[in-house]
């Protein structure tokens, strides 16, 4: 285990920036975002950045391919490979979320090359949490403020600096670039850093695994969905939501096929050209979102697709969020 003094952190990022695009937590108009870092003050004191790690590894819009030419003569090129990037300052919950969706993209009969290439070009340097917001519920989802899942390097913040631990080979390689900035951690430093770790609010969530037979037609879904405004706030902020659409954008004779986030709560999400819509009702869409995370995803991957980051809790304009649904489902099951 290594130690880096707080004052040396910018030096570390600067050095990593010579070979990679570096992202770090930066305050923009009062809120902290993981932003391309060009020497700004590195924000502290935040619980979780507005954007999760997902947004940088699985960007909101990315090119799948480029094409050029006319109807009788077209050439197609794969999108160019991503540049290496290092992300500092994400939280363990987000890193776990990224690993969770990485399984979707990398397992199964097809491997999503876009995701794989960018994930492999990315080194994730996670900072363990020193504080929790009322909306945090990572413990309820089986994680903790210092979970290692999904991180290449884990930073434990202490009063004078960070304990630094490489968790993967990529993490070790990146720390090699930091030679001279890192010291071997003393036992005292380790003890003090780890002591500072708080316990985020676990809440009294009753995590349940609903199967369609048990709860699919329960009136609860109607009750819940009435409140929903069908916006995409929850899914776009969620570190484990990954729905996308593909679309072509043309400029003259050149064009690109892009892949962009989409949201299962939008009413036209499943609208087909002929007019058929498999989930025209808000109730169906809300239910699908929660059952996807709590039932369908576990059926395929053996784990629930939520890491308790609390973004939906903080940002849903009408408080329709996973923590609440988990509480409610406890009630439903008891009733």
């Amino acid at each position, binding site marked *: 285990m290594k130690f880096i003094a707080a004052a040396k952190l910018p030096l570390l990022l600067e050095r990593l920036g010579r070979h990679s695009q570096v992202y770090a937590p930066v305050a923009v108009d009062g809120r902290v975002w993981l932003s391309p870092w060009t020497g700004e003050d590195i924000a502290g004191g935040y619980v979780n950045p507005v954007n999760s790690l997902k947004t940088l590894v699985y960007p909101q819009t990315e090119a799948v391919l480029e094409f050029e030419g*006319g*109807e009788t003569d077209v050439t197609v090129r794969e999108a160019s490979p991503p540049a290496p990037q290092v992300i500092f300052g994400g939280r363990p919950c987000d890193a776990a979320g990224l690993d969770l969706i990485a399984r979707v993209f990398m397992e199964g009969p097809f491997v999503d090359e876009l995701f794989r290439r960018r994930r492999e070009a990315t080194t994730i340097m996670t900072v363990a949490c020193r504080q929790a917001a009322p909306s945090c519920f990572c413990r309820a989802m089986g994680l903790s403020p210092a979970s290692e899942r999904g991180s290449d390097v884990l930073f434990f913040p202490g009063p004078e600096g960070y304990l630094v631990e490489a968790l993967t080979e990529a993490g070790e390689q990146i720390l090699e670039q930091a030679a001279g900035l890192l010291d071997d951690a003393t036992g005292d430093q380790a003890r003090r850093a780890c002591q500072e770790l708080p316990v985020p609010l676990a809440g009294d969530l009753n995590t349940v695994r609903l199967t369609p037979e048990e709860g699919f037609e329960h009136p609860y879904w109607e009750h819940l969905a009435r409140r929903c405004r069908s916006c995409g706030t929850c899914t776009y902020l969620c570190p484990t939501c990954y729905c996308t659409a593909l679309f072509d954008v*043309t*400029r*003259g004779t050149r064009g690109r096929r892009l892949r962009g986030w989409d949201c299962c709560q939008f009413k036209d999400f499943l609208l087909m050209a002929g007019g058929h819509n498999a989930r025209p009702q808000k109730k169906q869409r809300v239910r699908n979102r929660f059952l996807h995370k709590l039932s369908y995803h576990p059926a395929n991957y053996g784990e629930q697709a939520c890491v308790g980051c609390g973004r939906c809790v903080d940002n849903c304009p009408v408080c329709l969020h996973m923590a609440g649904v988990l509480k409610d489902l406890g009630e439903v099951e008891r009733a």
Partner: protein
Amino acid sequence: MPRTGVFVCWCGINIAKTVDVEGVAAASRSLPGVVHAETYKYFCSEPGQNLIKEAIWEKRLDRVVIATCSPSMHQATFREAAQAAGLNPYLVQIANIREQCSWVHSNREEATGKAVALVTAMVAKVRRDEPLQAFTLPVNRRVLVIGGGIAGMQAALDIADAGYPVVLVEREPNLGGRMAQLSETFPTLDCASCILTPKTAEVARHPLIELLAYSEVREVSGYVGAFTATIARKPAYVDWDKCIGCMLCQEKCPRKTPSDFQRGMGPGKAIGVNFPQAVPNRPVIHREHCTYFQTGKCQVCARICPVDAVDFNQAETTQEKQVGAIVVATGYEVVAPDQFGEYGYGKYPDVIDSLAFERLNSSSGPTDGVIRRPSDGAVPKEVVFIQCAGSRDPDKGKPYCSKICCMYTAKHAMLYRHKVPDGQAYIFYMDIRAGGKRYEEFVQRAVENDGALYLRGRVARVYPEDGRLVVKGVDTLSGQNVEVFADLVVLATAAVPSGGAPGLAQALKVGTDEHGFFNEAHPKLRPVETLTRGIFLAGSALAPKDISESVAQASGAAAKVLALFSREELLADPLVATVNESHCSGCFWCRPTCPYQAIEEKALRDRQVATVNAGLCQGCGACAAACRNGAMKLRGFTDEQLLAEVNALCL
């Protein structure tokens, strides 16, 4: 995949001088879907049209773009040519490389680049155009003429003589309009009433003309071929059907009042007609002047009337008339007198306007045709005429020339000299505008034969001194200040639209210019039409005009009406708005944006949606712009089509 042909016109040297037309054709050949491109000196010519037709046949073209002059010039020509070759005429687009390109640029390279861009845009649009079919509208072959002045009467007579019924609405109790107030007319010095009264009589007895005098058009709905006009008849308080026109009432009425017709100079009566030859020869009680209406006592007229025609309880009545076309001939009036403080108008009785001078000259006027000044009845020995009183004066909001004043002022000077041979006329003027047959000669006659003294310059002030008026101004030719002592000052006041015009324009949904004159569809090529199909213009409603021009335009409007009536059914332009009902949220905010009230409600199973009355719709597209849902589309100008144009240029 459409097969598009591009035809680049030289327009002689109009386009070819500035634009490399061969270069444009060459560039067109590489545009998506273009299978043919050629140039020609004049595609609008018959051989040019034949080239287009042949290419449509030989190259199996199903879209055509013609790079040429403005679509307002030859779009119809080219659409017809395409139709003759079997192509739907709405699959033809014009790229305007003349007005929008060659005429406004001088750099050949840049102009050529722009021409290519314009063609590119239209090629992209035409690809998304859909074949459209004109639909037919029935025609009601009756016409409404609004205004019973010389223009309105002429139009009514021309149309009625061709065998179609006319409803002629006149605001005043009698026909004649402004012309009835005039004494003589330039440049012939004919007596105005001598040439007017045969017309009024002809209108009155024409079996196909229904005259609605003392009436106003309140509302108009419908569209070309099928208008409905709501016409209100103002209460005359005399039953005109009973009245025999003996005018005993006028004779016996004890109440003398100022007469508007006599420009406030001569006495009128609270009941009566404006002038002896009035048609219809039926009296009206002027409520605001009538002793009975003001005090409840009198009723002399009712007692004297031999046929009991006076009816103090008469009320306004309205009726609807169905017509297929409308001619607007609402004429002009002169600008309000309170505009001319510096000339003392309204303050000094001997400062009068030109219409008042007409009345002083008229044998039916307040002085029986003898020129006497209003203050003391003396015959004026020196008269100053001030031209451009209000006209050509941006400060008074009338930057335009009233056109008729130069001529009638010369006439006034002439008439004055004929009646007061020792009198002297001075005329302050800016320029003399005497374009017209024998007009310049007429002005010269006033100067040479009748001794009118023209002073070029502006009058600064008019003020009284020793019982006369001092006119103070600058002679801009000599640069000297001038002072003229005058017994009478006559202002050639600016002509402005008649007072009823704004309300009527609104009822008709026809545009007006910033002064309130009706707008023609095209100032040169469609001077008697409005942008609303089926509504035509005649006379000074459009802009100040003299009598001969008014008559000519009235006959022009009549010809347009007759052309319209020559068909069993009208072909309506299919470029109208349509509603995608599945996108319409039924908010109906399209409705207040529609200048033609073409948007109606339609009930679907679960909600109301908008629908467009294609007969009323003029294809202006306001509703399409207002529709946030994107449900309202203008055919031929859909979002997809317009965006294709934009994208072809910008992306």
